């Protein structure tokens, strides 16, 4: 056999290029890309999808759900009981596992997508609108964090930025009496500005002093938390009149984000803002001069500097826009879902979930949008799962965390599913995962 291919090799060398290689392809049956350029493109596209990040993301979610199912099974009292007499009646154990896992995931589905228990479509689809409601702030905050990632910045100050933004837009929302649409717009802009300022502080500190943005944004989280908590306890500041609770006044009707599909659904116009933000951020990153500079700095700050791009101003602008987007998540909360006044827990962990969403979405706007909806579904479905099946909502958190874990370790996912390494042809054997890292450094 080896003799054979050696002969063909020399034939290919001596023959004319095209004919030679085509011969070899036919005779050895190897995967030579066909001559038709169209086919080629499909091959390439397929390999990119297989080896690339998209499938990894999906598989990470699938894997996490599988591990989640195992956890649900082993922590369920019914399964534990049946496992006690596993060797006499193993069927019971499997039955119990099936019951609890299918029950849990069907609640998750019914709580997040469509409730089959309701008579009409408009009632049945309600869970899906809840999913989108939860997704709304996750998407904008995820876009903010993702934009930071693309610039090489780790903005984990989402909590602080949301708190400050909440104060800004809330204050506009309850203290002024403006005409309908105008009031809402002013309040939204105020929220954006609040988040932008808070992240901008981190940007300026990093650009001017070289302080690391991770440290600075964490510190700013605490500063914002205590500042807002204090103001919420201080009459005349953010505290509602005539109460002792650390809570703000309710938003005036003109500043409330109106419901999108009528009052029977929670979903509000903030979702439309999230869609618009997705498009704008895509345009900004992929089509604008500013985004080009963001990405250049994110990938190679040295080359960016030599090319005349001011790395400092890029850092400041990227954090300002990132913070502004995170601020819009607070706008969704304060003007959309909890319009009766907020407390210092208004951020609801969204600033941190946004990091996961951005990672899962690979910092691409469309990806972030999809990831935001997925996490919204987990949130919406998790409540029903807890209520109906008595499964702790922590399982949902575990699944979310596992997704991050699997996303962060693509070689692991590739190894489990025997996917080809990107940049190599599909082979029967899986190359050692370490090869990819070394390949990258080899250049």
């Amino acid at each position, binding site marked *: 056999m*080896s003799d054979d*291919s*050696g002969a*063909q*090799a*020399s034939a*290919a*060398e001596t023959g004319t290029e095209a004919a030679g*290689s085509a011969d*070899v392809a036919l005779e*050895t049956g*190897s*995967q*030579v*890309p066909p001559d038709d*350029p169209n086919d*080629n493109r499909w*091959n*390439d596209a397929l*390999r990119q999808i297989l080896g690339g990040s998209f499938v990894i993301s999906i598989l990470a979610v699938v894997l996490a759900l599988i591990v989640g199912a195992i956890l649900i099974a082993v922590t369920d009292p019914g399964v534990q009981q049946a496992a006690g007499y596993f060797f006499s009646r193993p069927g019971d154990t499997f039955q119990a596992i099936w019951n609890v896992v299918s029950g849990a995931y069907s609640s998750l589905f019914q709580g997040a997508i469509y409730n089959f228990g309701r008579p009409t479509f408009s009632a049945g689809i309600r869970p899906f609108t809840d999913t989108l409601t939860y997704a709304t702030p996750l998407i904008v905050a995820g876009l903010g964090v993702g934009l930071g990632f693309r610039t090489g910045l780790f903005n984990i100050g989402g909590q602080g930025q949301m708190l400050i933004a909440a104060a800004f837009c809330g204050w506009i929302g309850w203290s002024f009496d403006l005409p309908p649409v105008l009031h809402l717009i002013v309040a939204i802009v105020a929220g954006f500005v609040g988040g932008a300022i808070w992240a901008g502080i981190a940007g300026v500190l990093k650009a001017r002093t070289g302080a690391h943005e991770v440290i600075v944004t964490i510190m700013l989280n605490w500063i914002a938390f205590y500042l807002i908590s204090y103001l919420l306890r201080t009459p005349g500041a953010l505290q509602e009149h005539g109460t002792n609770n650390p809570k703000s006044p309710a938003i005036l009707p003109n500043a409330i984000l109106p419901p999108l599909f009528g009052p029977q659904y929670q979903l509000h116009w903030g979702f439309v803002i999230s869609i618009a933000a997705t498009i704008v951020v895509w345009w900004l990153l992929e*089509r*604008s*001069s*500013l985004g*080009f*500079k963001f*990405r*250049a700095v994110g*990938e*190679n700050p*040295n*080359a*960016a*500097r*030599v*090319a*005349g*791009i*001011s790395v400092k101003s890029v850092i400041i602008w990227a954090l300002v826009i990132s913070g502004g987007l995170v601020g819009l998540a607070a706008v969704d909360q304060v003007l959309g879902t909890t319009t009766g006044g907020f407390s210092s827990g208004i951020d609801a962990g969204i600033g941190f979930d946004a990091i996961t969403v951005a990672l899962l979405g690979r910092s691409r706007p469309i990806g972030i949008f999809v990831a935001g909806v997925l996490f919204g579904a987990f949130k919406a479905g998790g409540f029903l799962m807890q209520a109906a099946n008595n499964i702790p909502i922590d399982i949902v958190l575990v699944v979310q965390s596992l997704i991050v874990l699997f996303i962060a370790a693509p070689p692991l996912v590739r190894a489990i599913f025997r996917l080809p390494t990107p*940049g*190599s*042809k599909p*082979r029967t*054997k899986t*190359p*050692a995962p*370490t*090869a990819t890292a*070394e*390949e990258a*450094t*080899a*250049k």
Partner: protein
Amino acid sequence: MKLELRGITKRFGSLTANDHISLTVEPGEIHCILGENGAGKSTLMNVLYGLLPADEGEILLDDEVQHFEGPGEAMKAGIGMVHQHFMLIPVFTVAENVMLGHESTGFAGFLNLNEARKRVREISAQFGFDVDPDALIEDLPVGVQQRVEIIKALSRDAKVLVFDEPTAVLTPQETDELMTIMRQLRDAGTAIVFITHKLREVREVADRITVMRLGKVVGEASPTASNAELASLMVGRSVELTVQKQAARPGDPALQVRGLTVIDHIGQLVVNDVSFEVRAGEILAIAGVQGNGQTELTEALLGLQQHVEGEIELDGNPLSGLSVRNVLDAGVGFIPEDRNEDGLVAEFSIAENLMLDRSDSAPFVKGGTLQLGFRSTFAAEKVSEFDVRTQSIDTAVGTLSGGNQQKVVLARELSRDLRLLVAAQPTRGLDVGSIEFVHKRIVQARDSGIPVIVVSTELDEVDALADRIAVMYRGGIVGIVPGGTDRETLGIMMAGEQPDDPNGPAPDPHDDEGRSGTRGEAA
């Protein structure tokens, strides 16, 4: 150990980087692989080293078929590789780096540091290296770092050693030392694969020469072949090894540098009171051993250095104190010496890299929006003009071969409206055909009246391009001599001494026009 490659084929998408390559390297032989940029040399070596899986073909060591799943296995089988970019950890000592390699091969048990030190000393003694096992890598000059790579390979008994363009970053002296080492290793029975673009080196050490073009082996050459023969075999056409140029017709002084002093970030004086001028339409070469302030000098011109004193004027306008953006907008073209670090964004496409330093204004940006249509047309044009070997303008620059990456930088800078060109090591890593092309373009820029500064550690390049030569030593300019000054004089000056030959440092260098055009044959 005998190495044999049989019918190795490697494809990237529809591109066949290696097309049924067969090659034998005998023990005790230095086997040179010559080939133009993108011919597939590095790819072949990466396949051999287990970094890339081959699509077809097999690797044999002493007639036994090998299956490497990764570099670890290749190392265990006795293959060592010295990459152009070293894979050493800068904050570790020499001994620690050498030991680290052993760990990653999964060698049984612990290897304590003392043993690693001993090994480093043994090998150093054997080959006459001067390497301190406890020195930190980051403190060592590149030439010594490379020796550490060699020690690393030898310490795990490499019987086949691959050098992929090892001399691109070395000084001529370090290169000579490396070649001595290679000969020693060969005489000790090691099979050596040596990749380089410098024909002089090939003829000096090669026992056999294989020439590759477009992913195929196109033939063997004899080490006694002339430079011209080797070059034409490699590129497939005859190559002008020394660019033909007219005598310079210098105009008014365009760039004036007076009393330039640069202090680097750790407070060292790296450029010391340097003054010179470059006239429109002349090429000033800055020669010198790497690390004598040339890098910092060019960076200061571009506004990249923080602590700069003195004056820089271009066409009468001050450049000193301007931001990089403003310096570029004043018409300064800059080819940085390290393209990976400072010249390119590896993950960006060719088209994106071609607009990297024009991301602010027309024609690439209008109203804050990227002009993608214009960019594509422009990129397609430049890719064909500069002969960048690529499948498409949307290919990530990081996947191009080294020489083709360099062409992208050149294409970007030379296609701007320039009033000054600063080129640091403009042909590093390029094949002879591309060097010819780049030299022509630089001369063309000069002839259109642009003042040009070329920083080069290659005397061949200095010789080929310079109208005048400034030699730097320890941050200062030792002297400025006319182009064509003989190598001995330059060598003396590069060591920091004034040549006693009075015809050397001419008081008015411009009285020496006309010589440059006829240079070249002497070398």
